């Protein structure tokens, strides 16, 4: 079973774990994800691989506690085993020398852009990174991303760090400064991805988004991850998770993501009670 080698609390609700998973690390490329089942009774949840080390045989996962299964995952400690990890999954990010690429990360999506930024830089791109969160405490991975980016811009909703505002404001400024942008990659909450796409669409700047749909098997079988892209149904687990953001039906995506909200709350309450009672 995959063992947790180290665990770090990045902010109130975000944790980082490094897990021993040599066969996953060996095959991983930037933009791919894994399915985690922390204990036998938990859900299968998709999480992005935030970093991987082929030599050490480890992968890094950064996750936000949003429900029952992430809460269980967070209850595991250094040295504990995770019941199941499956991966790498999904199509890797397309890498080539595009020129100037703006990579945008929001919330826990900030960690997810790290391997993409690193790889874009290695491929010879000029990477401008924009990260945004609600407040300073949630602005994770800032120094790591700074070393990999030509420029790093930060925004917070409350102005506690960087610009007070949204990542899309920074994006607009870069565009308005007249800089030629060859590609934009956005990873984060649905409203953020949608707004960024609204900015780039009229200018026809190719914008890729990484979709965090619900998943079960995540191997191309159950179909819950279906999303409408350019009027066609696509399956994010095997055809994604990256899609052309200008073609994605974000409204449908948001609705499908919230389909189990009440049940998820119920499960989370159940797990909270269990964890409290030890």
């Amino acid at each position, binding site marked *: 079973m995959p063992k947790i080698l180290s665990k770090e609390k990045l902010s109130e609700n975000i944790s980082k774990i490094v897990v021993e998973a040599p066969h996953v690390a060996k095959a991983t490329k930037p933009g791919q994800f894994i399915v985690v089942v922390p204990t036998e009774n938990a859900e299968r949840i998709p999480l992005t691989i935030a970093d991987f080390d082929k030599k050490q045989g480890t992968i890094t996962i950064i996750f936000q506690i949003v429900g029952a299964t992430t809460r269980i995952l967070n209850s595991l400690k250094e040295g504990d085993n995770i019941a199941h990890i*499956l*991966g790498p999954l999904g199509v890797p990010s397309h890498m080539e020398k595009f020129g100037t690429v703006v990579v945008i990360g929001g919330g826990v999506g900030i960690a997810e852009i790290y391997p993409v930024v690193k790889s874009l830089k290695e491929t010879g791109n000029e990477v401008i990174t924009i990260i945004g969160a609600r407040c300073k405490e949630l602005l994770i991975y800032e120094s790591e991303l700074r070393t990999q980016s030509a420029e790093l811009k930060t925004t917070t909703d409350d102005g506690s760090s960087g610009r007070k505002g949204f990542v899309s404001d920074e994006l607009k400024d870069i565009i308005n400064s007249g800089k030629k942008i060859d590609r934009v990659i956005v990873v984060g909450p649905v409203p953020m991805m949608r707004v960024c796409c609204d900015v780039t669409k009229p200018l026809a700047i190719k914008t890729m988004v990484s979709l965090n749909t619900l998943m*079960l098997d995540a191997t*191309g079988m*159950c179909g819950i991850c279906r999303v*409408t892209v350019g009027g066609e149904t696509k*399956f994010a687990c095997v055809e994604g998770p990256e899609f052309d953001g200008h073609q994605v039906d974000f409204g449908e995506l948001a609705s499908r993501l919230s389909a*189990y909200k009440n049940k998820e709350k119920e499960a989370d309450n159940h797990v909270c009670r269990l964890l409290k009672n030890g």
Partner: protein
Amino acid sequence: MAEKKLRKKMGERSVVERITDFQEVPLGYTLEEAISEAKRCIQCKNPQCVKGCPVEIDIPGFLKYLALGNFESAIKKIKETNSLPAVCGRVCPQEEQCELKCVLGVKGEPVGIGNLERFLADWERAENRKQKAESGEKKKDKIAVVGSGPAGLTCAGDLARLGYQITVFESLHVTGGVLTYGIPEFRLPKKIVEMEIDYIKSLGVEIKTDMLIGNVYTIEELLKEYKAVFIGSGAGLPKFMDIPGENFDGVYSANEYLFRVNMMKAWKFPEYLTPIKIGKKVAVVGGGNVAMDAARVSLRLGAEEVCIIYRRTKNEMPARKEEVHRAEEEGIIFKNLTLPIAYHADEKGWVKDAKCIQMELGEPDSSGRRRPVPIEGSNFKIPVETVIVAIGNSPNPLIPHRTPNLKTERWGGVIITNEGATSISGVFAGGDIVRGAATVISAMGDGKRAAKAIHKMLSA
């Protein structure tokens, strides 16, 4: 002339009792019933039943032992060629296979071969007489099997019995493939699947879960370490009808619905944390076994009204008669000659009705079944809160996508020879990855055929 004995009926739980839980419906033969039924076999010199069995069980052979009350030898006889008797005894469509060919069926009722196979497997389990698996002389050759569903397990079991070293790679966190994620508990208890898999393991087969071949290791990489590879990676993306509203919340594919319930045990929520949401009114679209399963699961999850929407009539339904019968008994409503053409949702995006059109049967089509034709102006709405689309699935796309030399049909099925060989030397395939969506037993037959071909190749 001896008095002709009627086929013994198997006891089953009452409808009232069974629709409230996920326990098995049939009760199985008693000892006396089993012996008496086995005695009905007339031991044909040229048994036709065996020809109807994709895994070539010596049917008169095991029935002979069973009639004498020698259960141990009887189950041993079955296991010579079939590693999954408790599964086959429950989910094989015997009425289209062995029992269809039974000569007693010409003038009366065929021997209850399936029921007897089930009886023996259950007897062995109850007696806890785990057979010491007998395998041939150990061989050095290593073989990789991709997928631990019926095709992979059969291929692995047969090759292990011949002495090969087998590693099975399973992508999910639990073994069994469709036996685990697809077929509901009340038709195939998961305890039984586990025990059958334990038997395969006792033959020396190693099973690695959480291993997605194609992504973790490519087929080419496997060929460097293994002498042969069998691909039994099973079902893939669910089919939809491409009608408006299919992506509304509350519209499930049968794959997703059954995966939640069977694999993730959503019926035990929140002890198991994967949720399922079921409305009072449920519509299942399709007429196969999977549609019947989804409908019957819905009842057990507490739906008040469950209907099957099918575009032809009951006569054309691909589901087993037995399954249709049980669904009817349990109160599933059959809306035949009906085709959904759109779904509508409430303001929250949750499905609220299915717009349908009435059909009539026209001329026969290429499948030989009469083609359903829409009746103009017959549109009507069925109020629903949950829709389950059970119209089949394509083969799993993952391995074909990652294996450029692997030839496939345009619809995605891996192309194989009569022996199960693919376009890549040393690589064989079978089950749903080849057939699209077929039966457990045909997948098992494919696994067996490939095992023979692999053995032949490696013995040459």
